[in-house]
């Protein structure tokens, strides 16, 4: 791996010849790896631009292109999702696949490209997976209930800067799913923890705190994600630097909610008081 800063300024002329082992799978079918050769990949290209080149080559050969998810290509939408040489989002920590550039690979290298692997993320085709389980978790409680037009004046509630900053740290999650893909248990605790931390520490998030926590954890479990066993792989692969702290706080809030629920005569925390 070459550190970017060690590169000369005009490395545009340098190109790589690569062998790519890419997972191919049709919806509902069994998958397998296929090998491709790709020549003259500029080191200035992004990983997804390299995949574009490969797809153009496949079109010229009259073959079906490799489906992969991508959209903003600037590391914020969270749509891109490839496991590259065993690492979700590839070898450079803190970047998404779309921001990964080919100067980080060697000439002649064989690169293995796989989809996110987890039971909760079934493969749709090739490298594209279905991450709607994440949306379901948010739908269960990843919000603050406020009807349009019913909001009070914004500055009526003071939020200390450290609290706002902490909420923002958690809110930076882009929902890409690299935490699940990197977790040896296929657990979504980093994703859920990030959202819980964002909302549960803000004053606006307090009324629904217990209900939110219990509902989101239940939905997470039902979606078939695994359990956290504190490996820390999610933190090490998160492109946005979300840390295990959010999981610790999720655990704490869950425990708190269960205890409150247990001692409440009506079990209202769980049912949301409805």
């Amino acid at each position: 791996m070459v550190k970017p800063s060690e590169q000369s300024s005009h490395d545009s002329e340098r190109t790589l010849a690569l062998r790519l082992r890419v997972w191919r799978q049709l919806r509902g079918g069994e998958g397998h790896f296929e090998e491709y050769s790709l020549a003259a990949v500029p080191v200035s290209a992004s990983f997804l631009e390299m995949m574009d080149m490969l797809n153009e080559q496949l079109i010229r050969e009259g073959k079906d292109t490799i489906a992969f998810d991508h959209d903003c290509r600037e590391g914020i939408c969270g749509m891109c999702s490839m496991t590259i040489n065993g690492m979700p989002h590839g070898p450079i920590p803190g970047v998404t696949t779309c921001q990964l550039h080919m100067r980080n690979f060697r000439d002649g290298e064989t690169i293995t490209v796989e989809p996110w692997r987890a039971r909760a993320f079934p493969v749709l085709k090739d490298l594209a997976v279905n991450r709607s389980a994440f949306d379901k978790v948010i739908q269960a409680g990843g919000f603050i209930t406020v009807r349009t037009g019913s909001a009070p004046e914004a500055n009526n509630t003071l939020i200390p800067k450290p609290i706002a900053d902490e909420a923002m740290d958690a809110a930076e999650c882009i929902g890409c799913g690299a935490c699940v893909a990197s977790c040896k248990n296929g657990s979504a605790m980093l994703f859920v923890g990030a959202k819980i931390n964002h909302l549960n520490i803000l004053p606006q998030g307090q009324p629904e705190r217990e209900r939110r926590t219990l509902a989101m954890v239940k939905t997470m479990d039902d979606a078939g994600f695994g359990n956290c066993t504190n490996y820390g792989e999610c933190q090490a692969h998160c492109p946005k630097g979300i840390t295990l702290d959010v999981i610790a706080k999720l655990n704490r809030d869950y425990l708190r909610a269960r205890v409150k629920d247990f001692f409440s005569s009506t079990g209202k925390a769980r049912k949301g008081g409805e």
Partner: protein
Amino acid sequence: MSASSCYKNCQPASIGKKIIMALSGLVLAGFVFGHMIGNLTVFKGAAAINEYAEWLHAHPGLLWVARSVLIVSVIAHIWSGVLLTIENRIARAGGPAVEVTRQASLSSRTMPYSGVIILAFIVFHLLHFTFRKIALGGQEFGADVYKMIIAGFSQPAVALFYIASMILLCLHLSHGISSVFQTLGLRNQRWRGRLDVVATAYGWVIALGFISIPLAVLLGQLK
């Protein structure tokens, strides 16, 4: 309610199982410390440890309360561990063809294995020193615990099995203790490093404390 939906609805949520795992682990980790301190009286001579054993047996109420807590903890620990491990295997769906580890420690990745071996060790240990059914050459020791220990560890294979198991226990504890704090929500980035050191140190203290006895027997220091 069908059997499968009961499986889903009748067991605690993922974090609930983790909390059961953590709390039962905490009890067991505390127990091994007490057990180790008690065992170390062996270095004060036969009289000391025999007296300690006698004191324990003179308080059967206390002993059985402790034993009950331990049995419940062990069952809870195993039950949650087995469920978590099975669910996690399923959730991983085989994992990627190329497996890379960036952060997960050896101890964290081997928890189920070290756990199973430690369980096997516990069974052996109970049969060995509590029920006195195996690996003691059929001798009777009565109240002379000291003599039983010397006899038990005088067989190198048995002593080495104890030593190896304690190293695995150290491994298990060095991830487990720090995880207890994480699971109970009492850990953060600032404290993670420190807690990891504490956990590893605790694991080694326990392991070395226990290992010192068979080692001393093997080296002829205890006779």
